[in-house]
């Protein structure tokens, strides 16, 4: 794919190729932007994708060094049908509609996706009595292709469920997808259509917020001007809103911990397994991943806004996740756990999907409180936001007939497509047969292709999310240093300056 937009990294010690280095806003052109999107999470990237279909000058920026480095990288990767949403809310409408768009979206953007379905299980009499209500709720949410099941029927579908279940409900269109590739796909198409992307830049000051052209200042005091500002900075959205006197909202991180199981247990179940939700919580799910693992989770733990330990994992939660999972799939607890991770939802006291047009001043759109359904609703939420910008904020929209809305077939990630299985590919590029990540069977060529991909990733985590290298059971034991050596050699960065996720996370500690 050709990049028509500019892609730049603000990398403080200049340990990056000259052509990618951001040092001066003049590199971005003289005219003010039409729209600056602050935050390259799933919502920001989806919005960039949708806006790039129009003739607009757009900038997508993020303080981190890749798309989806915060909330968007730690989630269950479920594409929800919306069967259990609170009915008649904006969230439920966006989710339900998006759910039906996902198969085509995944196909266009080359996002690995599978309609595995879900099975809701009633463990006891009390839960069994709630099934009718849940069924009715699903139907009122527009999810009518569900079926109530007896215990025997549920066991036919999923033989591994506990012996004492009373019954269940099957939701055939509940799906799973690759959350990492999704953001990359959105951003790559936006870039190809002319959107500029800036990594490593945080907006620390805003002036002239009440004027038609707003002035945004980076941490280094550089000036970026724009007509419209969209705040999709997730857990950073309050800090940004304070810079333009946006209306009050209170956000806090709500952590969800997950356990990752090895791939041998994957074939034991077909679908996502869910417990009946209680008043307080959705409960612990057992979730197949598109990559071939099983997850158990999430937990739901509220933290205060500036708690640094929020992405930690804990022993107590490990136990409670195993206990919860065993109520759905008892034998899972005997399977090896290969990892634990935490996702952090942006919880907003004023409600989910808090969207304010002309917040504080005309031309500023604040979006916050997007929790577990952001990944699912990203295509329809983005469309909704484009519409709000147009109707309520006055953004002029003119379709760009040359814009693309899809990625070429070559964009399918290697771990999905297995290039070495294609004899012709392997003959042409033998390095597809030179395996670097043994656990996930990822080749050297795949890693280099991703280093050359339009977003030009520079870090170990960016390569991990794109290729799966370092994601396997050995957690980088065999391949991490080798991957670092490949990045170093290919991108011209000294090995000791290779980072996990940008400056401040170098693999070699600086000499005092």
């Amino acid at each position, binding site marked *: 794919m050709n990049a028509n937009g500019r892609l730049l990294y603000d990398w403080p010690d200049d340990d990056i190729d000259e052509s990618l280095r951001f040092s001066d806003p003049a590199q971005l052109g003289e005219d003010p932007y039409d729209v600056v999107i602050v935050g390259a999470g799933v919502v920001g990237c989806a919005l960039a994708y949708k806006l790039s279909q129009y003739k607009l000058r757009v900038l997508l920026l993020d303080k981190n060094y890749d798309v989806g480095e915060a909330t968007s990288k730690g989630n269950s990767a479920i594409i929800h049908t919306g069967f259990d949403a609170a009915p008649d809310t904006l969230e439920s409408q966006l989710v339900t509609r998006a759910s039906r768009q996902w198969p085509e979206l995944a196909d266009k953007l080359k996002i690995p996706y599978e309609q595995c379905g879900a099975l809701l299980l009633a463990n006891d009499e009390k839960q069994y009595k709630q099934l009718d209500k849940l069924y009715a709720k699903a139907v009122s949410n527009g999810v009518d292709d569900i079926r109530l099941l007896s215990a025997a029927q549920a066991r036919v579908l999923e033989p591994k469920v506990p012996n004492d279940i009373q019954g269940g409900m099957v939701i055939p269109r509940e799906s799973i997808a690759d959350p990492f590739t999704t953001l990359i796909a959105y951003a790559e198409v936006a870039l190809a259509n002319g959107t500029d992307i800036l990594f490593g830049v945080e907006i620390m000051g805003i002036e002239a917020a009440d004027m038609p052209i707003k002035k945004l200042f980076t941490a280094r005091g550089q000036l970026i001007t724009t007509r419209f500002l969209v705040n999709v900075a997730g857990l950073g959205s309050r800090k940004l809103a304070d810079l333009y006197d946006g209306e009050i909202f209170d956000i806090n991180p709500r952590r969800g911990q997950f356990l990752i199981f090895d791939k041998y247990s994957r074939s034991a179940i077909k679908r996502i397994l869910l417990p009946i939700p209680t008043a307080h919580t959705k409960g612990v799910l057992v979730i197949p991943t598109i990559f071939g693992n099983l997850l158990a989770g999430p937990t739901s733990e509220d933290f205060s806004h500036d708690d640094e330990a929020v*992405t*930690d994992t804990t022993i107590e939660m490990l136990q409670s996740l195993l206990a919860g999972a065993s109520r759905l799939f008892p034998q899972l607890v005997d399977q090896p*756990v290969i990892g*634990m991770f935490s996702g952090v939802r942006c919880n907003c006291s004023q409600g989910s999907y808090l969207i304010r047009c002309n917040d504080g001043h005309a031309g500023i759109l604040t979006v916050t409180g997007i929790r577990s359904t952001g990944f699912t609703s990203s295509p329809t939420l983005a469309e909704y936001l484009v519409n709000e910008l147009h109707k309520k904020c006055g953004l002029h929209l003119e379709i760009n007939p040359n814009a693309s809305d899809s990625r070429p077939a070559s964009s399918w990630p290697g771990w999905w497509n297995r290039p070495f299985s294609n004899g012709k590919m392997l003959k042409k590029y033998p390095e597809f*047969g030179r*395996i670097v990540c043994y656990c996930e069977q990822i080749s050297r060529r795949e890693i280099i292709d991703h280093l050359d991909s339009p977003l030009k990733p520079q870090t170990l985590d960016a390569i991990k999310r794109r290729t799966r290298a370092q994601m396997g059971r050995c957690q980088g034991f065999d391949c991490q*240093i080798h991957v670092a050596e490949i990045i170093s050699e290919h991108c011209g960065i000294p090995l000791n300056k290779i980072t996990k996720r*940008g400056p401040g996370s170098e*693999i070699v*500690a600086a000499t005092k």
Partner: protein
Amino acid sequence: MNSTKYFRVVIIGAGPAGIGAAIALSRLGIKSIALVERSDKIGGIPSLYKKKTGGVRTFIRWSRGGIPVFGEEYANSLKRKLAKTDVKIWLQSQVLEIEANEKKIILVNPVKGIMSLTADAVIMACGSREKTPSERGWLTGSRPIRVFFTKQLLQLIDGNDLLPMHNPVIIGSDLIAYAAAAKLKYAGSQEAIVVDNGRGPKCSYVERLYFRRWSQPSFRSSAFKSVEVVGSKTASGIRLSKDGNLIPCDGIVVCGELIPNSELALQGLLKVELPSRKPVVGRNYQLSKPGWFAAGNILGGYHGAEWCYFNGRRVARAVKNYFS
């Protein structure tokens, strides 16, 4: 279409155990042996240790002349012995899957492409790796950079002449942990702090005495409670939950606690104990289907290179017996 090749014996893994098996089989008169290795060199873990004057000597073999040979020297001596045989060595060849009933392995190689190898016997000498923090079960907290396995330490210090940390904390207290503390000190770091969840170090007193020449790390016990990693982007300390003390550091090495690389056995539905990942072996190192054998650290436990080499030779004899 994948091409198929037949060998009398296929050995998966060219570390000390695989090499021991290959050399012994050759000396026992077995012809047509393939030694398949996924990395680009033979010798396994010992080959990562480079020899430096005055440097920490690990993987020692007391040779006949009484002169100790270690690390890459040891790996090279094995290589020389192997070169005297007819064993076919396939490097950069990762086994993707096995078909246990057919005694078949399917591998990929950059030049040869995807190949099926069938054999009359297959020896899995796949070695082991160090347990991840999640697998240990008592290491929690953040997941920053500079939480390294010992192998990665070797790749950085010996492979690239880089010292990744100045104030190390070492999780684990076996022989490997004390060797890592010594290696770091020799490379220029401060004295390490060794942390483990038992009451005292797992490494014996005599073994620790050996490493005192290079370093004298202090030991802290977490008293069977959890240890929390601290630091959002970069490792900055650990906290022992028993007393809440923060031990500052600029890097953590997670050492020892070896776990077998038995994923091919699991994939091929051979019997493997979980969660230990030890393949179930019967008499004579046979796995749960006929014609499949295991040698070296894949058997589980905790063995140095020499033990693995001699174990490989024993398994070779078992294969020879199996044939007769």
